């Protein structure tokens, strides 16, 4: 038997681990990221001569039922045409039986990377609102994401916001124009990742720090749009504090966080689903109000806060009035003297 050196071993492991795209229109370029549900590769679309990101399920075994459902889910997700949802170009099966999705290759940075160098709260809020809008669009089409976290949100080169990784999405209902069908779930077996783990009834899917309590408990039947809203709240928590959600309130972690922003975050992350926002659109609207210095639905202000907010919002007008008053006082004094 031939001795395999360390370098040859590394090469063989890469060769064996990398997907075989023969028989497809893609050629392998390199590995981009590896997660619990699958691995994302950069590949070249040889027909259209462009680069695409291809997600291949990591598990070495698939049942026919799982494969069929994955393809169906990919087809449904591919119909989510929204500027904030990374488009799925293609879905297929590799020669080794694994299902893959070909998606737009997004050049940019992940939300956590973006936050590392963006201190402006307003900029962060705008990005977060765009995330809410994309998720709201998916919800309107009966799809919940189930693994929303900063690492699954990309900020493109032109500042566009894209929600990635719909591989563990759940379809609550299909659009009315489609054939009526029972709610279905995309179930991707995990491969040993501690963060994102397998699902079946009673087990868990998603990333623990960003998942809702019902999701943590593995209550798959209980998951709905509000489970995503919890995750959005957790992403918002991260944007407010630069930390993944913990037991502490946002203001305890970062005292600069305003009470309305904290209230929005806590409402989205309420333990009981009934106390959360009813929709991502509502959450987005509250973020919009926060940006516009309007009262948010999640927080009841006292009189002092109302005045402070009004002053903050109308700073220019207040300054003008103050300047006018100062001038009047100045003229009064000068005319007397």
């Amino acid at each position: 038997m031939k001795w395999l050196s360390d370098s040859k071993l590394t090469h063989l492991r890469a060769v064996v681990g990398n997907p075989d795209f023969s028989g497809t229109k893609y050629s392998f370029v390199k590995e981009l990221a590896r997660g619990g549900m699958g691995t994302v590769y950069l590949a070249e679309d040889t027909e259209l001569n462009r680069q695409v990101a291809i997600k291949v399920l990591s598990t070495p075994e698939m049942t026919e039922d799982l494969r069929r459902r994955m393809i169906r889910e990919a087809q449904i997700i591919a119909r989510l045409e929204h500027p904030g949802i990374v488009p799925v170009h293609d879905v297929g099966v590799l020669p080794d039986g694994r299902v893959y999705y070909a998606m737009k290759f997004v050049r940019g940075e992940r939300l956590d990377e973006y936050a590392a160098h963006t201190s402006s709260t307003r900029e962060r809020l705008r990005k977060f609102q765009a995330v809410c809008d994309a998720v709201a669009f998916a919800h309107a089409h009966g799809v919940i994401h189930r693994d929303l976290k900063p690492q699954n949100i990309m900020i493109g080169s032109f500042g566009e916001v894209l929600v990635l990784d719909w591989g563990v999405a759940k379809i609550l209902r299909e659009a009315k124009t489609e054939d009526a069908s029972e709610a279905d779930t995309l179930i991707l077996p995990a491969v040993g990742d501690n963060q994102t783990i397998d699902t079946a009834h009673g087990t868990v899917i998603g990333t623990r720090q960003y998942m809702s309590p019902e999701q943590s408990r593995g209550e798959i039947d209980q998951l709905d749009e509000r489970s995503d809203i919890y995750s959005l709240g957790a992403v918002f928590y991260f944007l407010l504090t630069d930390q993944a959600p913990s037991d502490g309130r946002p203001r305890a972690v970062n005292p600069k966080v305003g009470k309305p922003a904290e209230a929005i975050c806590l409402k989205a992350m309420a333990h009981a689903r009934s106390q959360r926002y009813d929709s991502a659109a509502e959450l987005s609207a509250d973020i919009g109000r926060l940006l516009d210095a309007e009262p948010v639905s999640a927080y009841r202000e006292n009189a002092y806060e109302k005045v402070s907010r009004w002053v903050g919002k109308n700073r220019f007008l207040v300054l003008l009035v103050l300047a006018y008053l100062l001038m009047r006082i100045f003229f009064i004094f000068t005319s007397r003297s």
Partner: protein
Amino acid sequence: MDPDTDIGGAHQRFPVTNQSAIAAARSEDQVVRQRAFDTILNSYWKPTYKYIRLKWHANNEDAKDLTQGFFADAFEKNHFAHYNARKASFQTFLRTCLDGFVANERKAGKRLKRGGDVNHFQFDFLSAEDEIAMQAMQANDLNAEDYFHREWVRWMFTMSVDTLRQRYEASGRQVHFQLFEAYDLNDDDTSVSYASLAETFALEPATVNNYLAATRRDFRRIVLDKLREITATDEEFRTEARSLLGVDVK
């Protein structure tokens, strides 16, 4: 594609029906148990020997005896039947058993000579010694667990390459294997391109591409087949598959 002759059948899918040798080690049937033991033995003897040599600092004669002794003891007492997949991976279990065995032998201060000078198993210790000599410098950089794992991965791949070669020779696809050997197994520093291989083997570059893709696919299958044989549960199989097929060498 001929589903009867092509490895993996028409769909080239992953193995789902391979019997786990770990599970079979608990069989009441002596023949089944013996076969399972042989599979485990084949998969682990070399990493075991190297591990004893380098991490227990045993000389080659002691390491040979300890390796023989460990597996003989495991077979006699049916140790592998006691493995509980919920507690640890089989690899960890085996290594723990091995550490316990070697520690006990050392404590007792005895040098194993089970059945006099008769060896129970036929191992190619010479090749293992050659490999130790080639990697002596690198071994010191790894802790015991990582070293055992790396050597186990190396042995799994080595056996898989050998199986691939045998199958391809048997099915008259020597050219496929020669291409694989030249491109993926060649330790020579000179870079080999698809074009140069096409020229050497008088093939079209596209054919080289297709042959290599098919061979790698079969190689992957063989590796996973072997892996399934020596893992007890689906979860362990997936975990080990990820570890084995990961890009980073541990």
